[in-house]
């Protein structure tokens, strides 16, 4: 149990704080700066996380936690009465429109209740939810595709297939009245067209009359939190009397968990590399903050050492004195931190759009997180930094001997043995002065030089971005033009490239290389041995259906085949073999796909095909599936896992010879892959073997000159815009723009960082100069009294300032020169698009600027000094 003397110590701390206004302002500035850095970091982190989240859900079409599929009203009642279910929504899908105009993105016609509508990100711009009759709501893009004006009351005619039924008789066409609409979200995978419940009920009647089974409702549910959705769902189902396992049971119920909640979000974004970066940045900020806050307090404590000695005399213990200093620091934090939090948040918000561009998330999903975690974490880190920074000065004050209070000699705190100066030369005096408080001097040098080194490093990094490396690495060709489905995989069959369009492009550009890419459509497999099949089953993620082996013991494993024209085949990277054989009509040759990593193991893999081996590919027309549990065909919606056995019927085999192992550049690949044996064949061979199933999907071309490239860029760009076809393209120009944006982002980041650290360094310098002057106020006064002119005093101060700044510049220069080669090799290893080069230009540029600062600040401070007369300054000595 201790004596209660906190109030007294607090009073001393607070009052002594108020006497030193200059130091307070600088300290608050320093604290705010550091807080800004922390807050920016955390704002960006949290915003990335929330943006990712939103992005994911919008791409999935909704953010409900989970769904029970195809449930009856009774089942709905049972389920929704469970206590875990916080909210629920119903949706009945009655039809899909996948034909024109919804070829690119299909439309789903359904009834959604209020909750479901909300959870599908539908926010009406105008109008209301459909309530009666044939009211309908849809998005603006759908309206545009249907050629309808976004005006309430407009008539809309839609044709769609009855849900689940795919023959002609199941097409329904009906006319609705637009009751409301919303802005289309580019991320949304489908167009939602929502009708009334009334309509759905009528529709169901109509469907029953036609002899089809009635349409079922899906129940979307929300729990109180998104933690562990799956087990909650299972609990609800089982406790309500349903089973999720046996698909044939009476009480079987189908369910689905929203994939957005099953990812471990953390590991997606926060790779070890990212975490290392974040940590490095945090440490950098702490270090910067430490430098300046430590210095500020160190100087102020040293100047107040007599005061602390006095306190010790009266009976203030070391612990209490440390507390005084801590109270002062924390009081300054109370002002500095909020300022820093606000500004940091703003800065983070400004930088977020730039970051989003870098990731593969769409800019539309950008959400700036305002989670309190940001502010709490930043404040905590800041307070931690402050406490750590003031620890040593606190110890200095606490360790003072009480005799200090009684000493009448005026010194800058610590008496040191001074070597006799050879005369009173200004420079030697200046140097001697700096030797007085070695710690302070070192600190100022370090923070100034540090800022410069960071500046140089950032500049080095950004300038080293090699554009051509970037472009060359990602592209095989200057241009790739194809159907939009090729670039944006949206599922299902991709549209073919119109050969006429291809011709037009070939004619209107001046290609030095003309390539054509084709895809073999249909269900394509290769024949595998039992060993190969076993390997496939082992490495394949997720459950695979069992396969009934063929009579000769072979298994079929899905694969893709891409076909190139001879010109395009030149772009392939050959690991082994001879690709010219692809065009050899004497045989059927195929080049198996591999990559740099995998190819290393091919030689030793007994299951791998070797160059010269035969490989059999086949097209499959029919597969029979059997549910082993029921002995019959699997019902609707059953998962194809090990409970299902597949039997391949109606297979046409074709034999090929492996002529090579190749790697294909991404930009001209199929942009998708299997775990089978994907391959490349020549287009002629393809047409011969697979006939109609060879679909042109893109063309790729190179241009020779810059002028040609520019012309081609313009033509293709226009073509893609104007033509009614679904076209998209990639070109070097686009890549260049991407690169510029990327580079600018880093430049922005680095710039902000440098500015802040630079400000810290300069603040430190200002503080050191002013404190030094104030501490020596009396000395200077005495010097002037004995005959040193004002000009000479100014000279002395300015010399000191210049030594600091220019000296720091020189140190930075030396450090940078040493550091640059080191950085180069490290960064080149990490970032492939970086080309090392030597540059210390920023430092050289900054040195004269520093010189100016080193001159101005002491000069201005000196002006403030001379406002008070010499005599008054001497009188203050007592």
């Amino acid at each position, binding site marked *: 149990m201790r004596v209660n003397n906190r109030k007294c110590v607090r009073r*001393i701390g607070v009052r002594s704080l108020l006497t030193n206004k200059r130091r307070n302002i600088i300290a608050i500035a320093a604290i705010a700066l550091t807080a800004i850095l922390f807050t920016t970091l955390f704002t960006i982190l949290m915003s990335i996380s929330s943006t990712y989240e939103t992005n994911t859900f919008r791409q999935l079409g909704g953010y409900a936690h989970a769904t029970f599929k195809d449930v009856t009203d009774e089942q709905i009642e049972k389920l929704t009465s469970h206590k875990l279910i916080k909210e629920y929504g119903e949706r009945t899908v009655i039809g899909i429109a996948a034909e024109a105009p919804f070829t690119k993105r299909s439309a789903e016609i359904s009834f959604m209740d209020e909750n479901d509508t909300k959870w599908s990100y539908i926010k009406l711009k105008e109008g209301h939810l459909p309530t009666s009759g044939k009211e309908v709501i849809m998005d603006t893009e759908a309206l545009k595709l249907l050629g309808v004006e976004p005006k309430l009351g407009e008539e809309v005619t839609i044709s769609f297939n009855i849900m689940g039924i795919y023959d002609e008789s199941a097409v329904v066409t009906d006319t609705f009245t637009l009751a409301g609409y919303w802005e289309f979200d580019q991320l949304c995978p489908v167009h939602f067209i929502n009708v009334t419940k009334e309509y759905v009920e009528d529709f169901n009647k109509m469907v029953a009359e036609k002899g089809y089974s009635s349409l079922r409702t899906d129940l979307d549910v929300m729990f109180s939190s998104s933690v562990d959705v799956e087990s909650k769902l299972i609990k609800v189902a089982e406790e309500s009397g349903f089973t999720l396992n046996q698909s044939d049971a009476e009480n079987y119920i189908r369910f689905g968990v929203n994939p957005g909640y099953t990812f471990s979000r953390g590991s997606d974004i926060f790779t070890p590399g990212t975490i290392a970066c974040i940590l490095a940045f945090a440490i950098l900020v702490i270090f910067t903050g430490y430098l300046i806050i430590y210095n500020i307090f160190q100087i102020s404590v040293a100047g107040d050492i007599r005061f602390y000695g006095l306190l010790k005399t009266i009976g203030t213990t070391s612990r209490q004195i440390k507390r005084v200093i801590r109270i002062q620091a924390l009081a300054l934090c109370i002002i500095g931190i909020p300022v820093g939090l606000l500004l940091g948040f703003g800065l983070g918000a400004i930088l977020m759009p730039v970051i989003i561009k870098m990731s593969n998330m769409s800019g539309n999903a950008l959400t700036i997180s305002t989670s309190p975690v940001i502010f709490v974490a930043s404040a905590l880190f800041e307070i931690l930094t402050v406490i750590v920074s003031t620890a040593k000065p606190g110890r200095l004050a606490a360790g003072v001997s009480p005799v200090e209070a009684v000493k009448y000699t005026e010194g800058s705190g610590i008496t040191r043995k001074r070597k006799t100066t050879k005369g009173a030369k200004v420079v030697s005096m200046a140097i001697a002065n700096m030797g007085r408080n070695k710690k302070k001097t070192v600190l100022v040098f370090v923070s100034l030089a540090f800022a410069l080194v960071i500046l140089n490093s950032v500049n080095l990094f950004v300038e080293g971005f090699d554009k051509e490396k970037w472009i060359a690495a990602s592209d095989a060709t200057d241009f790739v033009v194809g159907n939009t489905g090729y670039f944006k995989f949206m599922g299902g069959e991709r549209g073919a490239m119109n050969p006429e369009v291809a011709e037009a492009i070939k004619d209107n550009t001046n290609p030095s290389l003309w390539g054509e890419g084709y895809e073999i459509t249909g269900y394509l497999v290769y024949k595998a041995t039992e060993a190969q099949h076993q390997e496939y089953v082992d490495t394949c993620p997720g459950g695979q259906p069992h396969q009934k082996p063929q009579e000769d013991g072979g298994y079929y494993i899905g694969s893709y085949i891409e076909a190139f024209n001879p010109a395009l085949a030149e772009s392939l990277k050959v690991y082994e073999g001879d690709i010219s054989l692809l065009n050899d009509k004497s045989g059927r040759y195929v080049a198996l796909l591999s990559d740099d990593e995998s190819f290393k193991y091919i030689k030793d893999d007994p299951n791998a095909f070797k160059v010269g081996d035969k490989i059999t590919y086949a097209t499959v027309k029919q597969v029979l599936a059997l549910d082993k549990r029921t002995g019959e065909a699997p019902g609707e919606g059953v998962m194809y896992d090990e409970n299902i056995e597949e039997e391949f019927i109606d297979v046409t085999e074709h034999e090929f010879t492996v002529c090579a192992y190749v790697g294909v550049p991404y930009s001209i690949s199929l942009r998708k892959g299997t775990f089978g044996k994907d391959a490349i064949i020549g287009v002629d061979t393809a047409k011969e073997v697979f006939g109609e199933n060879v679909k042109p999907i893109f063309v790729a071309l190179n241009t020779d000159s810059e002028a040609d490239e520019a012309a081609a860029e313009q033509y293709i760009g226009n073509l893609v815009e104007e033509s009614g076809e679904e076209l998209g393209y990639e070109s070097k120009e686009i890549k260049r723009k991407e690169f510029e944006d990327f580079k600018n982002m880093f430049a922005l980041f680095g710039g902000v960082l440098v500015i802040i650290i630079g400000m810290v360094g300069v603040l430190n310098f200002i503080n050191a100069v002013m404190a030094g002057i104030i501490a020596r106020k009396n000395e200077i006064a005495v010097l002037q009294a004995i005959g040193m002119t004002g000009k000479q005093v100014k000279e002395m101060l300015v010399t000191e300032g210049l030594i600091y700044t220019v000296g720091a510049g020189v140190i930075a220069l030396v450090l940078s020169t040493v550091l640059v080669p080191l950085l180069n090799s490290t960064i080149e290893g990490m970032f492939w698009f970086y080309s090392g080069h030597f540059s210390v230009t920023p430092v050289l540029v900054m040195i004269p600027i520093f010189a100016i600062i080193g001159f101005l600040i002491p000069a201005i401070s000196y002006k403030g000094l001379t406002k008070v007369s010499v005599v008054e300054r001497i009188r203050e000595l007592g």
Partner: protein
Amino acid sequence: MNILEAKGLKKIYGEGENKVNALRGVDLEVKKGEFVAIVGTSGSGKSTLLHMLGGLDRPTEGEVIVEQKDISKLKDEELTIFRRRKIGFIFQAFNLVPVLNVYENIVLPIELDGAKIDKEFVEEIINTLGLSEKKEALPNQLSGGQQQRVAIARALAFRPAIILADEPTGNLDSKTGQDVLSLLKVSAEKFSQTIVMITHNDEIAQLADRIIRIEDGHIVSKGEGR
């Protein structure tokens, strides 16, 4: 009974060429309730001796025993608290805390100990020393004499057993000095406090029960009862 004892005190400052032998083996006893004056030429080591007695500084050799306790054995923190409760200091340059007002300065040692302030007693002291008008004033608003009176009030308020004063009237004119010192003597006698005071003023030295003369780090005369 000795309230203060010094045995073989030696103090050396600095090193090598700059070595200063401030005290060269000092023995001293002070009885409880005595008023002892220490006189000597400047540089004789008087201040150093006083600092040792109050635990402000540690001797190079020797012991300082206060109230039968060897304070040279105490740790820093213990020594500070010991000073807080037992010793009142009055220095030549007042040494008031500039950010606290008169009242707060006076009760500071009490508050540092978290003890209850005997308000009546403190009021009495303030009145006796003629500071009632200036209770809320800051040190820089007071004259030299007033500041010294505040320092004395501070040394009396927590009723320390020992009062150590180093030329307390050095910065005051003779009349003020005499007043201040009379007040001190009367108060100390009233509360049976022991005073050890350094002075170069004969008149003041005569107020003491005993005069100790120190010269060049040695005690040359211990003075006996007068």
